[in-house]
């Protein structure tokens, strides 16, 4: 599988570039958000920074990563067939399952940020931080699998 990946046709390069770029920005946005929320200790400035980074940087980059992944899959003619490799399975599980967690973190964080003015929302924002850390760990596993391509 590594050899197949190494000799991919040139026309896959652009969607692969978009996929990797989107994934890299997503990891950066998640790292920034998790850090800001972890170090905020109730400070509204850092809490808002963490949440808005997830929303404004993380969400578009997730869409780019996901759309480009499906573009590559369709170019390979695999979108009608099952996933037959461990690394692609890990990638899809993290992308699709991660999307659910990502949206959950945006909803919880959004409500938490809205409640900040009333002195509430700390628990929701802590949940957003924990989800961001879980997603970050999952992204590391996905990147390892996509690059190393275990059987």
């Amino acid at each position: 599988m590594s050899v197949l990946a190494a000799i991919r046709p040139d026309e896959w390069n652009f969607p692969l570039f978009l996929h990797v770029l989107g994934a890299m920005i997503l990891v950066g946005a998640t790292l920034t958000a998790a850090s800001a929320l972890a170090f905020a200790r109730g400070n509204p400035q850092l809490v808002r920074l963490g949440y808005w980074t997830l929303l404004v940087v993380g969400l578009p980059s997730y869409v780019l990563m996901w759309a480009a992944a499906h573009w590559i899959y369709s170019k390979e003619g695999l979108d009608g067939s099952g996933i037959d490799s461990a690394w692609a399975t890990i990638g899809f599980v993290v992308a699709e399952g991660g999307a659910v967690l990502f949206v959950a973190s945006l909803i919880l964080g959004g409500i938490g940020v809205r409640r900040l003015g009333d002195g509430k929302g700390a628990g929701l924002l802590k949940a957003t931080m924990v989800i961001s850390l879980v997603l970050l760990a999952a992204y590391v596993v996905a990147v390892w699998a996509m690059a190393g391509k275990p059987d």
Partner: protein
Amino acid sequence: MSLDDWILALHVLSAFAFVAGTIVFWVLIVAVRKTDTPEGTIRMEPVVKVGNAATGIGAGGTIVFGIWLAISLDAYQVWDGWVIAAIVLWAISLATGQRTGVAYMQGMTKAQGLQTSGQTGPSAELLALNRTSNGVLLHFATTVAVLLILIDMIWKPGA
């Protein structure tokens, strides 16, 4: 997975850390543009440290594991044009990134000085330092270099 597969995985993970660090600093650059108080500026410091760690681990890992792969894999050589281009771009990104840090640390140092002297209110001088256009340009240059490395790694011109 072979040893080379593991090294490739670590190389790519390092690249992700490198870009993640770049994103952390873009977010901080935008955030600090509205920050005119010492407390608000100093509060960013832990996130700056996360960005520094990601960039440092990423920069070190990409070059070490990248050169390892170029030596280990028969298909590639360290003196291939696209590999040399990546090394040059990596060095440029490091140089501009280091200067970006110097530009933005002026604001952090000023904020710490103001807080030490008991001036906790808004400061126009601090805001001006936090809005350094030199810092933005340098980080833009770093980002362009990193983007070109990614393009170089995917298209591998001449390989």
